[in-house]
């Protein structure tokens, strides 16, 4: 895949977070002797939350971090706006080192550049929907009139117009998280941090909110770090996905890469149940035309169905059911490869032709 030259908005460099009184000593020992998580726990009575995490997120990208409960996702995302201080490592946002900022700069960053959504919603029960939404503007001393205008816009964006003067406990869970979303986008930040925003909601409402979020993010084009423990959600929403296990980022890649080339047995187990139909592209399973002709002799492919390299397996299946021929893959009018029925079926299974077990 050709990556366009991108500008990193968030860059995390070697983030370590060790919880405990002797965190610094444990960190020293890790640097010197490379202790394991277990040894750190036994020798220093410290818990490793995040272990050497490095990644970067480009402008407008949605970066999903996926992992089971306790894998350190919340700990990691809280380093980005420095709600948690790293034991080691740096976070750089648009070229500025967040860990070198003084309290005043940090507050400005949090209020103006970063919006955050929490799994527990964390709305203020004593404030109306409107006052919750514009909290970040209020603490910056923005005028009442401006706040009312911003609140109206943000509340309309999440379809809650008419509920401005209600209190959080008068709203359903789904509506409360809409307020959480409105609060995060109110100050028009560059970055959205979302810590399992939809996990506490029932499946139907979750779908609905994912929809709202994806519409919003297509429109507002925010750089987003999105945490979830649901791989389906990560695949639906994420441009790239990082898989986290026991504080370590074990693999970072596009949904297609994660699903087709899991880095280890742990990731493989995760993606085993995921349908490849809408993820895997023709480019991944096709055989180059030259190689195909070498094996099967020269071909007359005038009657073959044609697809593009970026087409998903689902579309190839639609083409394949109407013909006995293989499918020709053509990029910009030039034939480049062939997908045989056999390769297509293997692709659906998640295996590549030739490497089949």
């Amino acid at each position, binding site marked *: 895949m050709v990556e366009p030259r991108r500008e990193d908005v968030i860059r995390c460099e070697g983030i370590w977070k060790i919880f405990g009184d002797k965190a610094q000593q444990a960190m020293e020992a890790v640097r010197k002797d490379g202790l394991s998580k277990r040894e750190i726990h036994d020798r220093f009575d410290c818990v490793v939350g995040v272990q050497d995490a490095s990644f970067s997120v480009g402008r407008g990208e949605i970066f999903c971090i996926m992992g089971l409960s306790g894998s350190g996702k919340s700990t990691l995302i809280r380093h980005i706006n420095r709600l948690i201080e790293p034991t080691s490592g740096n976070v750089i946002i648009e070229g500025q080192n967040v860990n070198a900022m003084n309290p005043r700069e940090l507050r400005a960053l949090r209020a103006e550049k970063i919006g*955050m959504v929490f799994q527990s919603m964390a*709305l203020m029960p004593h404030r109306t929907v409107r006052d919750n939404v514009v909290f970040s503007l209020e603490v910056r001393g923005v005028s009442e009139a401006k706040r009312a205008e911003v609140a109206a816009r943000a509340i309309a964006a999440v379809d809650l117009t008419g509920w401005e003067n209600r*209190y959080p406990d008068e709203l359903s869970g789904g509506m409360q998280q809409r307020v959480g979303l409105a609060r995060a986008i109110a100050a028009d930040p560059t970055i959205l941090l979302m810590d399992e925003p939809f996990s506490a909601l029932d499946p139907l409402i979750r779908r609905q909110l994912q929809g709202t979020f994806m519409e919003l993010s297509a429109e507002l084009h925010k750089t987003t770090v999105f945490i979830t423990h649901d791989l389906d959600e990560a695949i639906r929403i994420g441009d790239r996905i990082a898989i986290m296990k026991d504080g370590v980022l074990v693999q970072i890649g596009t949904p297609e890469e994660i699903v087709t080339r899991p880095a280890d047995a742990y990731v493989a187990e995760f993606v085993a149940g995921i349908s490849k139909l809408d993820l895997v592209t023709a480019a991944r399973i096709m055989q180059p035309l030259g190689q195909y002709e070498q094996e099967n002799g020269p071909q007359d492919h005038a009657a073959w169905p044609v697809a593009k390299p970026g087409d998903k397996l689902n579309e190839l299946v639609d083409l394949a059911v109407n013909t006995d021929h293989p499918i020709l893959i053509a990029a910009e009018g030039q034939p480049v490869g062939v997908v045989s029925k056999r390769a297509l079926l293997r692709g659906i299974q998640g295996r590549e032709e030739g490497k089949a077990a």
Partner: protein
Amino acid sequence: MESSFNWLNPFAAVDLGIGAWADGIKQWAISNREMIQPIKRFFDGVIVGIEGALQAVPPMVMLAILGLIAWQTAGRRAVWVVVACLAILGFLAPEAWGLAMTTLAIVISSVILCVLIGLPMGVLAGKSDRFEGAIRPVLDTMQTIPAFVYLVPVVMMIGIGNVSGVIVTIIFALPPLVRLTSLGIRGVNPAVVEAARAFGATPGQILRKVELPLATPTILAGLNQTIMLSLSMVVIASMISVKGLGNEVLRAMGRLDAGKAIVGGLGIVMLAIVLDRITQGLGRSGRDRGHKPWWQTGPVGVIAHLLGKTN
């Protein structure tokens, strides 16, 4: 000394001189009385001012005012309890109302000072485990040490009268406010505080806009306790020449006068019920009040509504 020392009873032989040391403090206080006098006169002036104001209001007007306050803070049903208790108080004896106002002035002064001292201490204790650990034994001491122990040094230092009365009342009544303020601050949902931090609030803004409002019901429960304890100190305070209902009880004890005892005792109880009713209502959360701000309920709400109509 050496020869009479007994390992089985070492205490008899050792005299650390704590009594004498405390006595020394008393001597120091007596010789420095001049310094304390201006402060004393200032506070005495404040207390006398409050009492004068309360006494100047005709009883029926005061009754109406307290009734309206009860309506505002606790709802319409509390009004009847408050009015009935005040009426009983007034009918106890011809002089009972005036005595009650004197007592009320002392209670109000004590509670104001308790809030000024206790609220900041409670907030600090809620934020810092170390401070909480340090003041906890002090608060325990203040609540359990018999009042007679500090009555003497306070009088030595300041002399008898209202100011001393207020000080001994504060010593006894302050702890619940500090404790419950700390409890309230600690009970605030940490996720909400984290959200405030994530959106760029300063520590002061977090305190004012998040922690104090959310801790308010608990803090007001502490205030209610403080008021009740202040009232329970009035008899002891009357021993150092504080006037009012407590003094009636004290004099009744001296003369075995059951009539006076009933007037003083029942008067204190009636006043307690009135103050309890008024302050208990304050602690209701926004949800219980149907999320109306205070100026949309009670008599103020009625007036605001009427004004809104005429405009």
